[in-house]
């Protein structure tokens, strides 16, 4: 897992500086401030879903999956093709906080991503 946090919505630093030398377009790890959710809510498994978008380039989407999830190229391409052909792909599932952080990073790259409860 690339980054974890206890509550993404309490973050206080998200790439506030200029996006240039030495930086990436990813969102920086938020700083933990306080817990705001009950354990029950946190225990429910969540999944990170990416939805098809006819504008985003396939090569771009593959690169984003590699960067955000650390997936090897082949796995990233498989998910990209699933998004392209089936309209959506589940990229990750687990506890809520990292799932939220992944969705935030994906939005930083302008992908259509949502957080869903596993049913």
């Amino acid at each position, binding site marked *: 897992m690339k980054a974890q946090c206890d509550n993404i919505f309490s973050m206080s630093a998200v790439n506030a500086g200029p996006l240039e030398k030495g930086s990436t377009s990813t969102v920086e790890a938020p700083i933990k401030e306080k817990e705001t959710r009950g354990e029950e809510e946190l225990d429910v498994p969540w999944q990170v879903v990416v939805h098809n978008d006819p504008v985003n380039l396939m*090569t771009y989407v593959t690169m984003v999956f590699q960067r955000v999830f650390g997936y090897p190229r082949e796995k990233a391409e498989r998910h990209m093709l699933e998004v392209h052909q089936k309209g959506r792909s589940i990229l990750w599932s687990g506890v809520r906080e990292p799932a939220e952080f992944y969705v935030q990073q994906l939005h930083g790259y302008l992908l259509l991503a*949502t957080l869903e409860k596993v049913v």
Partner: protein
Amino acid sequence: MEICRQDDALQISDLDPFLAELLRQVPESTNPDGAPAAEARLFSRPSAEKKICAEWKSYVEPELRRLFRSATETVTDDLTQLNGNEKSLSNCILHIPIAHADAWLNTLNQARLVIAAKYKFSDEELNDHDRSPIGSRRDLGLFQVNFYGFLQEFILREISG
């Protein structure tokens, strides 16, 4: 137009005035003002749950706006190289430092998404790369989406080695 890697920069040379103008329009093309569909696409809903969306709007969306604005500012600075050629019919050169590649990818993506949302391009239109000559503002918009996509492809190829 030629595009190649030159040490730590991407060089776009032999850039004719029309394409140079399209590049100058990249930053302003990211502006979704007056187009709710474009705004909604740049800042899409993170969940079907209202509570999550409300928290997102308060805490995450401002940071995303900062991220996008920062990328656009970097691109705007790079594009100052094209200033002074506005009235000229001669071709010009643009150097994009590799360190700015992520900012360019992000900004070009913002521009493509905003233009596509404003004109409501269909999947068929977006996949029609052999479209006939530009005859309307809408055609120009589609050409922009494709041209900016071509630049993204090149940048991606260079940064992924």
